[in-house]
């Protein structure tokens, strides 16, 4: 056995790292992007989108906490699909997660470069984007603890900036315009409310990725649910504050097309400290998001590689830093390719389509998990979410509804996404049906699944051919 094959991922992460990974990736969506809901459905449409998407994400994060703390594997949604649905779904989800995060990383890096070039117009976008991607790859290559501790600091500053701005406004430091709420409440009628749903995920997109560091957590059964649920609560509070601040400080017609809505709201307040705080928050949240995306996309690729869905060459672990170093390096050329493709909006939409596909399959994996292991023993399920699996069905309905709204304006992205993941599904389903991989329920310390006398179901679940020999 080689040195890098014998090395394994280091178990050092704590709940605040899980929080930092989840919120770090997502908070950028509250600084920018969510406001397109206002362009479609006005302030009311945005509120509805926030609530509907929020409901879906609360359920998804409950599913992810339960599955992540039970399986304790680095692949997150990919590993849950592999264990409880089948190889085709696993490959589709693994690739979807990889694409979702890598596209987001590319978009974040470009935004950092744009902000830098707005402050210093002589700075070029290309080298700054390249530097951001290279620097974050370097940090993630050197170790997950340093990467996620950095994420914690960046994310905390960005979140505190929103909280300070909100309380400053609430205590009358800033003059607000409540009339903006009514002027732009519902400009496009009922159809606008429905269309606004497509941008609702921006408030929370990627929170399920917090569970992807489960394999590197010191106590995953505690750290994953605690970090992820704390992250979800943070995002719900952040989303509500953001919507209120922007809706009372920016007229709805301008809010709908704003590039940096929170920063623009701070500018409209006219108070320097808020402008500086929110400007800094916008920059830091982009960096934190890109950093978290490198971490999650590399873990997804590492997990795919470890199970031979892609070349097993990528599954090597660095003997000194205990990181999946080849998978981390591989994020770099793909992110640079996405960043300089020139189709930023298409890249972001592809990220959303990929995310929504995961939001259909994560609750489905939970339903299968609950059917296979109905025991509530702490060995199989250290964390059991409330009202499951009924709310998982509800999350699937919401995810499909939001996916359907993408037909307004993003029909071709949606069709491309379905074709891409459909081909991946059938290709990997066929390829892994014939493999002789052994199921690992016993290795995981789990009992045999329900209804199985001799692990037949277990083998079928992971999609491998059953043989009696």
């Amino acid at each position: 056995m080689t040195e890098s094959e014998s090395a394994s991922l280091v178990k050092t992460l704590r709940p605040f790292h899980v929080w930092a990974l989840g919120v770090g990736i997502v908070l950028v969506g509250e600084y920018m992007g969510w406001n397109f809901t206002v362009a479609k459905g006005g302030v009311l449409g945005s509120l509805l989108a926030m609530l509907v998407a929020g409901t879906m994400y609360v359920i998804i994060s409950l599913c992810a906490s339960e599955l992540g703390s039970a399986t304790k594997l680095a692949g997150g949604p990919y590993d849950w699909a592999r264990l409880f649905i089948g190889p085709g779904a696993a490959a589709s989800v693994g690739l979807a997660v990889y694409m979702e995060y890598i596209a987001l990383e590319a978009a974040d890096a470009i935004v950092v470069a744009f902000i830098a070039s707005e402050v210093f117009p002589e700075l070029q976008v290309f080298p700054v984007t390249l530097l951001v991607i290279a620097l974050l790859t370097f940090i993630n290559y050197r170790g997950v603890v340093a990467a996620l501790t950095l994420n914690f600091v960046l994310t905390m500053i960005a979140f505190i900036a929103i909280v300070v701005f909100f309380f400053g406004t609430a205590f009358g430091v800033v003059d607000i315009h409540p009339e903006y709420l009514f002027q732009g409440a519902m400009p496009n009628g009922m159809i606008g409310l429905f269309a606004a749903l497509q941008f609702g995920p921006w408030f929370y997109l990627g929170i399920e990725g917090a569970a992807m560091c489960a394999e590197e957590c010191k106590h995953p059964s505690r750290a994953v649910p605690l970090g992820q649920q704390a992250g979800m609560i943070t995002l719900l509070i952040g989303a509500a504050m953001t919507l209120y601040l922007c809706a009372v400080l920016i007229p709805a017609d301008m809010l709908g097309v704003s590039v940096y809505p929170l920063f623009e709201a701070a500018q409209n307040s006219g108070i320097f400290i808020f402008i500086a705080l929110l400007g800094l928050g916008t920059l830091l949240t982009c960096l934190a998001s890109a950093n978290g995306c490198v971490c999650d996309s590399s873990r997804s690729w590492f997990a795919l590689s470890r199970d031979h869905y892609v070349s097993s060459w990528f599954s090597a672990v660095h003997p000194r830093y205990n990181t999946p170093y080849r998978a981390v390096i591989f994020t770099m050329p793909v992110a640079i390719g996405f960043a300089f493709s020139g189709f930023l909006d298409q890249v972001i939409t592809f990220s959303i389509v990929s995310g929504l596909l995961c939001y259909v399959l994560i609750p489905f994996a939970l339903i299968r998990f609950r059917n296979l292991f109905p025991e509530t023993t702490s060995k199989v399920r250290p964390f059991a979410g409330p009202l499951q699996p009924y709310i998982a069905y509800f999350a699937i309905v919401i995810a499909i509804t939001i996916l359907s709204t993408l037909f307004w304006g993003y029909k071709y992205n949606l069709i491309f996404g379905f074709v891409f993941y459909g081909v991946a599904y059938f290709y990997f389903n066929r390829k892994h049906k014939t493999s002789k991989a052994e199921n690992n329920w016993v290795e995981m310390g789990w009992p045999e699944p329900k209804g199985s006398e001799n692990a037949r179901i277990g083998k079928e679940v992971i999609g491998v051919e059953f043989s009696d020999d």
Partner: protein
Amino acid sequence: MDIWTVINGIIYLLAFALIAWVLLDASKISKKS
């Protein structure tokens, strides 16, 4: 030469230095194993 050309050049250099460090370390580890 304009100061911003130099700064942009330094940013390029930094980015390529980081990429080179990561790739060199990875190839060293791969050779060792």
